[in-house]
């Protein structure tokens, strides 16, 4: 997801717009789209319900792109991830890098066997498409599709109730399948830290499927507010906030997404934009790192807050990039960039909060234990 987008005036509506209004959503502009911030239950309940049962999010604003089956090599020239080695039916997280090793966008890339399916951020969609088209043939944006995210421990049962063979899927598997007779692409992944699914389906059928899912036991609609607090607790990056062209994937703590094949000594080392810097950072460590931060007390420390190398006094060493009150933690949580030497969990730092100083402690990410179905 992206934090920025065009202003009001030219807002797009998703295929679920009428359903959102019917469900009492408070709609807000986001990345050029009109989307639910929350429904009648409110952000707190929606967040907690997602972790306890299941929440349905409309993420149709995100960009969906199809590429030919032979696109892996071309994609590897843009993304520092092992995609040639990605089996059919599997999905992988990655980033588009620029020549300086900064991040142009983050995305999911899936090998469907008969093609590659990408999901990119709404605010970066046009640039990503131009970037892809400059390097690959057969780039096809899917403009007539909706994207739903069904997240939480009750997600599998809800989806299975629509006749979807999802029980045997594990985290990051992706399949084409029929959902109540609708042809869909279903991935076992998400942006909440919970088990769950991301479901691409034809726009015309999206509302009917969404209604079926909302009627399943334990499923509640949730908006952007809960999506943001859930992803922060899960330690996941938001493009435009935690990552952008000024951050490298290694600084951002995304080195895990750079497979061994693409590192020095690997069969396809480098060969992506900014490889020199990124490979060097993988070996010697980056100068700074994205760190999890737990502020003392109950007041959230939000994006933009200055970080200091001591709870009191000290020098400014970085900024908070995302921060919220974590409903599952029942405490505030944040992320920000600090010098690598200060990124060790337990390190006591300071953050500026309304002209005062609040103590923040570096904490491991994610803040909550993930519910991914890995086996």
């Amino acid at each position, binding site marked *: 997801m992206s934090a920025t987008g065009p202003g009001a005036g030219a807002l797009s509506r998703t295929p679920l717009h009428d359903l959102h209004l019917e469900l009492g959503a408070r709609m807000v502009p986001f990345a050029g789209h009109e989307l639910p*911030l*929350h429904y009648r239950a*409110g*952000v*707190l*309940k929606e*967040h907690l319900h997602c972790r306890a049962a299941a929440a349905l999010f409309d993420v149709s604003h995100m960009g969906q792109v199809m590429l030919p089956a032979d696109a892996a090599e071309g994609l590897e020239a843009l993304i520092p991830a092992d995609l040639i080695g990605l089996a059919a039916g599997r999905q992988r997280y990655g980033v588009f890098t620029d020549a300086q090793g900064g991040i142009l966008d983050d995305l999911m890339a899936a090998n469907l066997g008969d093609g590659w399916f990408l999901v990119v951020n709404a605010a970066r969609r046009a640039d990503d498409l131009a970037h892809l088209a400059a390097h690959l043939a057969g780039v096809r944006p899917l403009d007539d599709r909706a994207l739903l995210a069904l997240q939480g421990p009750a997600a599998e049962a809800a989806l299975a109730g629509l006749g979807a063979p999802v029980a045997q899927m594990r985290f990051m598997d992706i399949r084409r399948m029929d959902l109540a007779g609708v042809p869909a692409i279903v991935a076992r992944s998400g942006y909440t830290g919970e088990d769950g699914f991301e479901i691409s389906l034809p726009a015309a059928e999206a509302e009917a499927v969404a209604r079926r899912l909302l009627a399943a036991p334990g499923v509640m609609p949730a908006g952007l*507010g809960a999506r*943001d*607090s859930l992803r922060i607790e899960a330690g996941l990056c938001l493009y435009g906030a935690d990552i952008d062209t000024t951050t490298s994937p290694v600084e951002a703590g995304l080195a895990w997404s750079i497979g061994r094949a693409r590192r020095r000594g690997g069969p396809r080392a480098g060969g992506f934009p900014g490889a020199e810097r990124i490979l060097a950072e993988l070996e010697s460590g980056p100068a700074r790192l994205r760190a999890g931060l737990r502020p003392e007390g*109950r*007041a*959230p420390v*939000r994006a933009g807050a200055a970080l200091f190398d001591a709870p009191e006094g000290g020098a400014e060493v970085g900024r908070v990039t995302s921060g*919220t*009150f974590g*409903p599952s933690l029942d405490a*505030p949580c944040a992320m920000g960039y600090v010098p690598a030497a200060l990124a060790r969990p337990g390190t006591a730092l300071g953050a500026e909060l*309304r002209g005062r100083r609040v103590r923040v402690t570096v904490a491991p990410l994610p803040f909550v234990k993930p519910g991914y179905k890995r086996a």
Partner: protein
Amino acid sequence: MTRYTEDHEWLEEEDGIVTVGITAHAAEQLGDIVFIELPAVGAEVKKGDQVATIESVKAASDILAPLDGEIVEINETIVENPALVNEDPTGEGWFFRMKIEDPALLEEFLDEDAYRELTE
């Protein structure tokens, strides 16, 4: 009678003491409130001073002193249980009480009809 500020605070005056809270409209706009910081009892405040802070999951908002005066009481209950402000913004969810010089000053604020017009 209850008066309202354009910053969505309500004011109730009795014997020179004004009780201040946020309106139901404001509470609904803020969403789930998770943290409240109140001024110190005894604080002398000027109209427009930032005297309290509200944090919802999504954003922070300031409460401004509606008038010059002295903070004489604060509602500790909403610090313990911020959700009370969402549940009962004009009752149990009051913020603080302040002593003011001249109760007539309240007449400059919006009455209920004018406030309703502002929020429609």
